[in-house]
């Protein structure tokens, strides 16, 4: 198994995200969790463009299919391996961010889509909060009403700064 895939598997496990890609929801969860996880400075090298459901990396898609296939055939390469303590520490810091707040009635994959999309529009595209909220309202009306909560969470976990 490529070292990159081993790192990806351990990265997702540290974030409590199942390495399961059977449904759209599973795949979306992995995409957005890796996007958010990389913001902690644990850069796996995946670059995200803007797609219908927000940040998305075709290279990550290729890798999680390859990872799922490798895990099906042989998990032994993971034996005795773990993330470097400084990597684990950074990822653990945002684990709670990935849990949907109790007052928000969204599935985890949708919450992650909202967090990642808002972050992308603010940080990568350089939009103001109001403009990002407008874009989300236009393209993701089912998520847009929770934009403020997503913004608060990203600031709280220090994935956005300079409010």
């Amino acid at each position, binding site marked *: 198994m490529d070292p990159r895939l081993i*790192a990806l598997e351990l990265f997702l496990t540290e974030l409590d995200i199942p390495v399961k890609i059977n449904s759209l929801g599973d795949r979306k969860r992995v*995409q957005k969790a890796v996007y958010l996880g990389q913001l902690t400075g644990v*850069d*796996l090298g995946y*670059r995200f463009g803007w797609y219908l459901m927000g940040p998305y990396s075709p290279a990550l898609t290729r890798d999680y299919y390859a990872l799922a296939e490798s895990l099906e*055939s042989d998990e032994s390469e993971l034996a005795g391996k773990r993330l470097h303590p*400084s990597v684990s520490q950074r990822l653990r810091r945002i684990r709670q961010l990935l849990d949907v707040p109790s007052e928000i009635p969204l599935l985890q994959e949708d919450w992650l889509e909202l967090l990642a999309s808002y972050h992308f529009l603010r940080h990568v595209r350089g939009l103001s909060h109001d403009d990002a909220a407008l*874009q989300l309202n236009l393209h993701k009306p089912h998520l847009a009403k929770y934009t403020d909560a997503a913004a608060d969470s990203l600031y709280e976990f220090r994935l956005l700064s300079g409010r």
Partner: protein
Amino acid sequence: MNASIVKRVSDPVHGSIGLTDLETRVIETRAFQRLRYVKHLGLVYLVFPGADFSRFSHSLGTCHVMGRLLDALFRSGLSLKCWDRQRFRLAALLHDIGHYPFSHAMEDAVSNHYTGRYVVADGEDRPLNLEQERPFNHERAGKEVLLGDEELRSILKEEGYDPEDISSIFMREEHEPNQRRLASLLSSDLDADRIDYLLRTAHHTGLPYGAVDLDYILSQLLVDADGRICLSRKALRAVDHFLLSRYFDYLQVAYHKTVVAFELLLKDVLAALLRNGLIECSAGWVGQAIRNGEWSSFDDTYVWGKIRELSLTASDEVDKLKAKAILDRRPPKLVWASEFLGSRDDHGEHFKLQGKMVRSVISDLAKQFDVPRSRWLEWEADLKLTKMGPHMSVSKAVHLEEDDEDGLEQTVHILDTQGSASQPIVSVRQSLMNILANYVLYARRIYVILPEGEEGRYEEIKSAAQEHLG
């Protein structure tokens, strides 16, 4: 709408490439000149001697094709400002500015090396600087060049172009739908990058797969009622032909048995260079090298020197053997190969099973012939003619999955018979792609590399592999 052409460059593929003053100034920077010394096709020239062209000529060609695509769309009625035309031509010109020496082989080695540093074995303890020790892919490195190379950045800024905006085009970061569609001219099944690649590769390898009817394709480029870039139905044959040509080009060049052998060897050697500290290519190093100018000499020649050094100084005998094999042009030998066409729908189940079996047989052969596992190289590929399969209807587009969306955005669209909406070529019943997109070519090979003097064992190993795997 043409910005003034101030210079013409003679090109074997396109004849004459016109450049604006700004493009000329960009090309003259040290960061761009570096691309002269990064070969576009890695080690392919060890098999096809003419295929030693650089990312420099490909970048000029991609800029030229982008200009032609934009002009064709403008003639079809797309509203396009001179400013935007220059933005997209610049993005095409600069799309490969961040490529490492040996391109994709190095990128793969860098990705595995630095993400591998995030993982430790139980009980292992070593320092890790996360800010520095992380990988950049070539597009991210390209953005770093645009932002960090003072010479290039100041030229763009003087003319009012934002380096970050240019990089967002080749990084697909645009979120505004019309801009994203224009950016697809640099990243789709039929884009400026792929068109130049196919024409240039065919020209330089001498293979006949570049006879693409580019003029006709350009003359049929349109925009549908939704603003999507598409082609008229009359271009169906020309597009089928283009996609088939690309398929055959892959089979004959990228998948050539000796090209693959050298690429596998190269990846291992590059990994050894990184492991042994002979080269450094972390994000931190890349950023610093760009700022202090070292980047402009980080090219194929530089890495060849390091491979030579590895061949003399490596403590690991297999590293030494592999480095020497590349320098002496002694490819690993093919001992077993399989190739079959399978249905896209079965998700390669048979191929996955075959993979398990092959890995187990390699372990057995390694023991049987007392050849360490690190001298065996396994290669696999699944090649599709189009990014997306044939079964997606346009109505499904409203429930698109992201994997599908990537495919849908990248797939060539053909205007329907009513002349307003367009549909993916794979959905057009008269298209060859409607049938062929159902299939995937699955290929797998085993190579082995033996020290000098032991080459006589290849035949014996080959027979044993055949016996095990058929």
